């Protein structure tokens, strides 16, 4: 695991964080619930809590889908390539590329989806929330904070590397017993063909 330079983190008096969605995206409840599940994964292992609010302009974390240039100097580049980015604490900006095909189903843990032209939204959300909390990229392949995600792959379960990193910054959830809920069996996510493992 790694951190941003200077190890920025949310200050001690801000452990209960709020998040909101850009109202211009008009996201469905189903899409919003994907982010709720992603936040829960980090909530389980830290003393942090995440609450969804409606006021986008004043929330701690702001989530939006955008295409191309969207005001932060880091334009998105269309389908595939870069999928999302997020800022270090306490900025709280979480941007996703609106031109991707996002899969929003929420069953199970890590596994496969059967097409390589789509990206699992929860997988990307869990990764970017790691950045929002202060984690940088990890060289541990398989960790959530590894920089790449193979298309057709679902990766949502925090690894030991991820947990150690975030607990260095915030400590552990008092209710965290050291083992996360076991990931549901790796399974074929869809009943399509052979379950393309991705491009590489």
């Amino acid at each position, binding site marked *: 695991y790694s951190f941003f330079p200077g190890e920025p983190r949310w200050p001690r008096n801000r452990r209960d964080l709020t998040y909101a969605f850009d109202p211009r995206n008009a996201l469905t409840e189903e899409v919003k619930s994907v982010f709720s599940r992603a936040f829960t994964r980090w909530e389980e292992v830290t003393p942090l809590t995440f609450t969804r609010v409606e006021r986008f302009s004043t929330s701690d974390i702001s989530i939006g889908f955008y295409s191309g240039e969207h005001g932060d100097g880091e334009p998105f580049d269309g389908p595939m390539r870069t999928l999302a980015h997020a800022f270090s604490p306490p900025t709280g900006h979480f941007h996703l590329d609106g031109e991707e095909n996002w899969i929003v189903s929420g069953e199970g843990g890590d596994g496969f*989806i059967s097409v390589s032209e789509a990206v699992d939204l929860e997988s990307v959300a869990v990764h970017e929330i790691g950045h929002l909390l202060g984690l940088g990229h990890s060289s541990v392949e398989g960790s959530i904070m590894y920089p790449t995600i193979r298309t057709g792959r679902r990766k949502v379960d925090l690894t030991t590397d991820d947990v150690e990193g975030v607990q260095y910054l915030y400590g552990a959830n008092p209710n965290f017993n050291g083992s996360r809920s076991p990931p549901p069996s790796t399974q074929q996510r869809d009943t399509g063909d052979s379950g393309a493992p991705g491009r590489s």
Partner: protein
Amino acid sequence: GFYTNSSAIPPQLLRNATGNPWNSFLNFTGCHAGKKYDGLYMLKQYFQHFGYITETNLSGNFTDDFDDILKNAVEMYQRNFQLNVTGVLDELTLKHVVIPRCGNPDVVNGTSTMHSGRKTFEVSFAGRGQRFHAVKH
């Protein structure tokens, strides 16, 4: 678009998918330092975007030369992704390069952030007359 599962994606959309434009980087397989390759400047832009080439290097005015700046970037990338550090654009390296990824950089101000884990352990050597104590980060 948002889809509940992959079978919900309209077949037309899948058929029309043009694939990942980064796949063109696979054409650089085998390229190495000291030579010039058409379009290599785009790979330099990729490495600059993710921090492997600093903004001050050439100020983004890249050539197609496989120069030392690119070689250093490739080596750092290979170290970060635990690949064989050859400085050559081998097949495995480029297959990593083209995978869709997070837009946040791996390298900040020329320093890789991917190996800064704080797994700390102590080693003590209690030798005769002298004591060495080391802490490794």
